[in-house]
């Protein structure tokens, strides 16, 4: 038997599952007993747990003049009431790069800086008693002026942190002046301000944590997070104890979308309160607490300037960002770094410059939300391309085709400082134009315009590139075959809906041939899996998944060597199929289970991609706009999302669908709104509109798969593509629907009021160009 032949068999077997629509192994439990989220835990160690209820600030900015907890202390079921002065932990800076003085207190003592900031903690025997007692905590406030507007924040007129002496938390590229000659030689230069509005991740499961201390002096914390290991490190650091004393377990997680990366300070407070009371403590917030307590996303005020010639060549681009950190800088303050990196998008622009200033405001802190810095970059450049195309009177798709990076230029170092691995942008654009029937749509649009229909058609095009697997490139995996024929896979990634239990089992199966039902994927337990980067930034398959694939492949080699000794055969004559090692062409063999019975059969492996990948795509959105009411409805969205070869199309499509929906939603519906006094106006699901099934169409997905050279699967990330591509396509489509009336820009969300105002302003100005701006919060 030749090596060639057994490799061919390996490939065929691998192909039998890789790339197929395997339904999820986690679903039978999810669809019968239901998943087990943090608030569902019935672990016996939690018997007699206290319920934690926070008392939160009703004011955006105020001095605390008095706190009286006596009434609460005497309420039924109350075991303890804690204020900030009781807490002996050091107030942490939640983003290392923030200005000194911007630490977040555990519970506010002197001052509150956003509505929802915790001021006191009430521990009760049951949760209803907690609500009752929290109402009895009396806090006197002396109001201070709120700081909601970003420019007002940047002016430092009212400071949030006196000791910092500034509201600027941090910045990127602020040390260098903009080049006053950047647009020299351009026939046309267009500039405008764009609001990339504040959004709430709105995972259906709110934040939750539960903690209990053991007699060994270790604390076990169950929490809803996208990364147990980072949560463990943060909690240990905040508590000031050795990492070895903290055990974090992630039960099922009901959605994260970036907002559940790592730990929230509340998780550490739960652990601290459990130590103080000597009892287990449970915390699960309400939705209205979540809407002010969990980090928000986006929140950038951008100024774009684009210049080029009348033939359609873009020659220079500038992006100036003012980003909102919220009250206490967190991960959101880092994200403009990625916005700057991805500023030029898919375009080969000779001159690009950007900078970003991050300021604190008296609002909820910002963090990651699906796309995390990249959607903001894409929205800016795609809007700029549309404005440029409109100015020179060329079709927006044509202007894009003219300026995309040539496929022969990869790997391509951009003016944003990134090295794109692969890209076939023109091909993606052509595919999506083809699949959407772009020419026919333009013809239909022309007919409706000619007729003066009430319902006008808008067509939006976006071409995008994003960055996936950025930040942490390495991931651990362990694959073990047990004597009973089952397999355990340990992974440092942390699914919260992505389907790793199924996908990682497929990867192990592709090497071992053991049915996926016999493969258990474990994650999110820091004692079992001490190292891991979690699931965020669309990193999981190209890091953790590849590590599993690699570990299973290495396990096969170990098994073959052991089987060769046992069977007295040449390793090169052995093949692994259906969970057994056999001598090719014979029935002689030994099962992996038997080998595992003789000696532990387990491989630990680390995969390091060394670099992020840059998936790309193109979207076309078709929107109908009623010019009398201003209402826009997405009729159709067609997307090309190239994430390389697809492991499980069912799961990948699910990621695309969810992303597209969130993109449509940002473009048309969602916005976290504060009034001038810093009161949140969107703190419930009644006020914060994200779509139901009735507001969305079905989606048309077009496949394209350009592999990356960065990992053996050729896989790139897919989790955020839909959001990054769909948002600008839909926004553009709405503006396109009314562009013949003289409208050039409408900020997101393009609500009926905004669209109606834009139309009326344009009509009022006799068809001159009109922009409708959003609130620059």
């Amino acid at each position, binding site marked *: 038997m030749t090596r060639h032949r057994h490799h061919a068999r390996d490939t065929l077997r691998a192909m039998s599952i890789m790339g197929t629509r395997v339904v999820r192994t986690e679903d039978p439990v999810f*669809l019968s007993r239901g998943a087990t*989220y943090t608030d569902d835990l019935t672990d016996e160690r939690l018997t007699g747990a206290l319920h934690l209820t926070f008392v939160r600030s009703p004011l955006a900015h105020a001095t605390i003049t008095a706190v009286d907890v006596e009434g609460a202390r005497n309420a039924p079921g109350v075991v303890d009431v804690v204020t900030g002065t009781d807490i002996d932990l050091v107030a942490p800076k939640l983003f290392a790069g923030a200005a000194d003085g911007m630490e977040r207190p555990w519970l506010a003592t002197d001052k509150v800086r956003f509505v929802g900031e915790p001021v006191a903690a009430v521990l009760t025997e049951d949760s209803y008693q907690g609500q009752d007692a929290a109402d009895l905590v009396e806090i006197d406030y002396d109001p201070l002026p709120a700081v909601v507007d970003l420019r007002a924040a940047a002016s430092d007129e009212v400071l949030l942190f006196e000791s910092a002496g500034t509201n600027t938390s941090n910045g990127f590229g602020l040390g260098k002046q903009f080049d006053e000659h950047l647009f020299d030689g351009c026939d046309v230069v267009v500039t405008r301000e764009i609001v990339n509005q504040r959004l709430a991740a709105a995972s259906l*499961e709110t934040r939750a944590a539960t903690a209990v201390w053991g007699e060994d002096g270790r604390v076990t914390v169950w929490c809803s997070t996208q990364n147990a290991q980072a949560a463990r490190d943060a909690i240990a650091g905040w508590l000031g104890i050795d990492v070895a004393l903290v055990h974090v377990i992630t039960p099922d997680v*009901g*959605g994260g979308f970036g907002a559940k990366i790592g730990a929230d300070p509340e998780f550490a407070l739960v652990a601290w309160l459990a130590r103080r009371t000597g009892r287990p403590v449970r915390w699960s917030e309400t939705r209205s607490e979540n809407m002010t307590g969990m980090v928000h996303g986006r929140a950038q005020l951008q100024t774009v300037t684009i210049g080029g010639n009348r033939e359609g060549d873009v020659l220079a681009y500038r992006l100036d960002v003012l980003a909102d950190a919220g009250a206490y800088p967190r991960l959101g303050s880092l994200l403009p770094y990625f916005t700057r990196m991805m500023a030029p998008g898919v375009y080969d622009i000779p001159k690009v410059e950007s900078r970003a200033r991050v300021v604190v405001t008296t609002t909820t802190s910002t963090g990651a939300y699906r796309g995390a810095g990249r959607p903001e970059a894409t929205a800016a450049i795609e809007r700029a391309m549309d404005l440029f195309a409109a100015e020179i009177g060329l079709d927006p798709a044509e202007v894009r085709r003219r300026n995309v990076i040539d496929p022969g230029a990869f790997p391509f170092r951009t003016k944003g400082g990134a090295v794109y691995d692969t890209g076939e942008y023109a091909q993606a654009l052509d595919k999506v134009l083809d699949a959407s029937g772009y020419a026919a749509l333009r013809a239909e649009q022309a007919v409706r315009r000619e007729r003066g229909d009430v319902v006008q058609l808008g067509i939006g095009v976006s071409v995008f590139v994003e960055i996936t697997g950025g930040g942490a490139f390495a991931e651990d995996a362990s694959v073990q075959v047990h004597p009973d024929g089952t397999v355990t896979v340990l992974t440092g990634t942390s699914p919260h809906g992505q389907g790793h239990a199924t996908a990682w089992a497929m990867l192990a199966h592709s090497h071992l041939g053991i049915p996926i039902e016999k493969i258990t994927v474990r994650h999110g337990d820091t004692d079992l899996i001490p190292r891991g980067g979690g699931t965020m930034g669309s990193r999981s398959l190209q890091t953790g998944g590849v590590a599993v694939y690699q570990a299973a492949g290495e396990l096969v080699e170990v098994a073959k060597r052991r089987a060769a000794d046992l069977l007295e055969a040449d390793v090169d004559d052995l093949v692994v199929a259906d969970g057994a090692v056999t001598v090719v062409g014979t029935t002689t063999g030994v099962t992996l289970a038997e080998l595992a019975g003789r000696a532990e059969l387990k491989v630990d492996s680390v995969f390091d991609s060394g670099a992020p990948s840059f998936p790309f795509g193109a979207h076309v959105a078709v929107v109908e706009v009623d010019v009398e009411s201003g*209402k826009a409805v997405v009729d159709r969205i067609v997307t090309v999302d190239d994430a390389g070869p697809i492991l499980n199309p069912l799961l990948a499509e699910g990621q695309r*669908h*969810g992303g597209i929906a969130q993109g449509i939603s940002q473009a048309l519906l969602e916005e976290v709104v504060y009034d001038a006094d810093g009161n949140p106006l969107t703190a419930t699901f009644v006020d914060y509109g994200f779509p139901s099934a009735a507001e969305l169409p079905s989606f048309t997905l077009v496949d394209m798969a350009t592999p990356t050279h960065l990992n053996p699967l050729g896989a790139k990330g897919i989790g955020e593509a839909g959001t990054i591509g769909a948002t600008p396509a839909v926004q553009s489509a709405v503006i396109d629907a009314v562009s013949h009336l003289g409208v050039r820009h409408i900020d997101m969300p393009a609500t009926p009021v905004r669209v109606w105002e834009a139309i009326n302003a344009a009509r009022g100005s006799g068809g001159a160009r009109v922009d409708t701006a959003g609130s620059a919060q």
Partner: protein
Amino acid sequence: MKIEMTVNGEATAADVEPRLLLAHYLRDVIGLKATNIGCDTTSCGACTVLLDGESVKSCTLLAVQADAQSVVTMEGLSPDPGSLHPVAAAFRAEHGLQCGFCTPGMVMAAVGLLRENPTPTEREVREGLEGNLCRCTGYHNIVRAVLLASGQDPDTARPGAAGDGLVAPGFSVGSA
């Protein structure tokens, strides 16, 4: 107050506070944790259960309001993970769930919907599930799952009024 309630075919009884929500009765008193609570405002539908056969949001009913009635939760549809109810099985087949948090309510709402309208169009499914929010799936595969559960092929099922042409719901084609 003393209440008695049949839940998933079994008799339950407890002495409860009048203010206790049905959702908390199910989760905390009798320990059925599938039913989730996702909001405080009757918006998300994660807590949807069947009350005497009709889908209701259990965070908006007091437990005492369900006294002497019959409740079915997702656990009651498919007591055995190895043998899923047809609607639950369709959710699995079409990947109609990701994080799973909205799923118990969504499945119960779908059961209620199909009871009232056994062969819905795509538009009828979308409007029928309007009271249930999902943040993960974009609803695409949930809609397919419900169509499949109704015995239709999701690829060829009737789109309903809104998808018949390019005109979206609530609009006229009339010219100005």
